[in-house]
């Protein structure tokens, strides 16, 4: 009698574990699937936007003022490529959960890559920036926006506390990549990894250089 009850209890517990486990796996897998889907959507939108920008430039109707309009949260704003870690992602406006689930997020209010000011891009340490810690000083980064494209060189690498002010305005074009530190999949993230990069002269078009100088 006691053994039968114990067996029943074990089976009920095992079934509960299976249910809880399946729920957690479904939750995490679902989020990953949604993020992957949104990344695909962002890439498609980015391709369309690039095509439209090319057509507009060809028709000589692209104006700087029109291209600098405020970007909606969740919209693709740039393409980020880091050859050393084989990263090629579409950067999405915003750093909320949904945006970071889909791809690296551009911090609203910061400059766009290639513009005068500090362009801040953040991503999850377990997703798109999982290998960001492999980057060293001197490594190159490429960015593309609808207005400009060019290369950057990493000039600063530091780890700061999560409450430490780390993002500052810049009078010169600057690219800042951030993710949680230490770069591991589990546990708390008490610190932040901050990489700063400066544009490499000669890799930017004349118009982009003018925007970097703030001529527009």
């Amino acid at each position, binding site marked *: 009698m006691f*053994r*039968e009850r114990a*067996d029943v209890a*074990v*089976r009920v*517990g*095992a*079934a*509960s*574990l*299976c*249910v*809880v*486990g*399946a*729920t*957690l*796996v*479904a*939750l*995490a*897998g679902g*989020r*990953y699937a949604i993020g992957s889907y949104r990344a695909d959507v962002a890439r498609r939108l980015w391709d369309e936007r690039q095509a439209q920008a090319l057509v507009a430039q060809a028709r000589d109707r692209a104006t700087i003022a029109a291209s600098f309009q405020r970007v909606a949260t969740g919209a693709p704003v740039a393409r980020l490529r880091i050859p050393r870690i084989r990263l090629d992602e579409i950067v999405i406006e*915003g*750093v*909320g959960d949904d945006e*970071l*689930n889909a791809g690296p*997020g551009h*911090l*609203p*209010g*910061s400059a766009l890559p290639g513009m005068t000011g*500090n362009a*801040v891009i*953040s*991503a*999850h*340490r*377990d*997703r798109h*920036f999982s290998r960001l810690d492999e980057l060293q000083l001197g490594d190159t980064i490429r960015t593309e926006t609808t207005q400009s494209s060019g290369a950057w060189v990493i000039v600063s690498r530091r780890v700061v506390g*999560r*409450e*430490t*002010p*780390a*993002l*500052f*305005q810049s009078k010169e074009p600057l690219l800042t990549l*951030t*993710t*949680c530190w230490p770069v591991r*999949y*589990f546990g*708390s*993230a008490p610190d*932040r990894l*901050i990489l700063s990069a400066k544009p490499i002269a000669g890799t930017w078009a004349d118009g982009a250089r003018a925007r970097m100088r703030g001529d527009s």
Partner: protein
Amino acid sequence: MRRIPVTLRSATTAMTLCAATLLMPAALSAQFTTFVAPPRKATVDSAKATVAVAKARADSVARMTLSDMKAWVDSAAGVSSTQVASASDTVMTSAPAMAPAERQPTDRTTTTFSNGAIAPNTASPLPAYLVAGLAALIVGTLLLRIRPRRA
């Protein structure tokens, strides 16, 4: 040259006028601008002074010496400074009870850029969920596969 006769009466009158000229302003609290009487020198009671100094030291919150005025101006203007304060910048001596409370770390998140903003929170619980779920599934499946023992 004509001689002026000096009598005792005229001399007394002249001296009285001189004395009045010198003493009247003090009596009238310096109504005359030509002469301002100096304030009376306060008498120092050494015992009271010692007590007052001790009391002032006990009441004072802090004694601060600012040597880096740039940092002070930046902090007054609400601008974050990237420089880390060194021991030589600001020296504060204060009573332990009056020391400012340490800032507790708050769970702040950055959603928009501002000068001196903290980096956005990019930690995700999804990997932990995934591993915990897989572990629960494996353990649950193993337990279910154990056949109940017959008595």
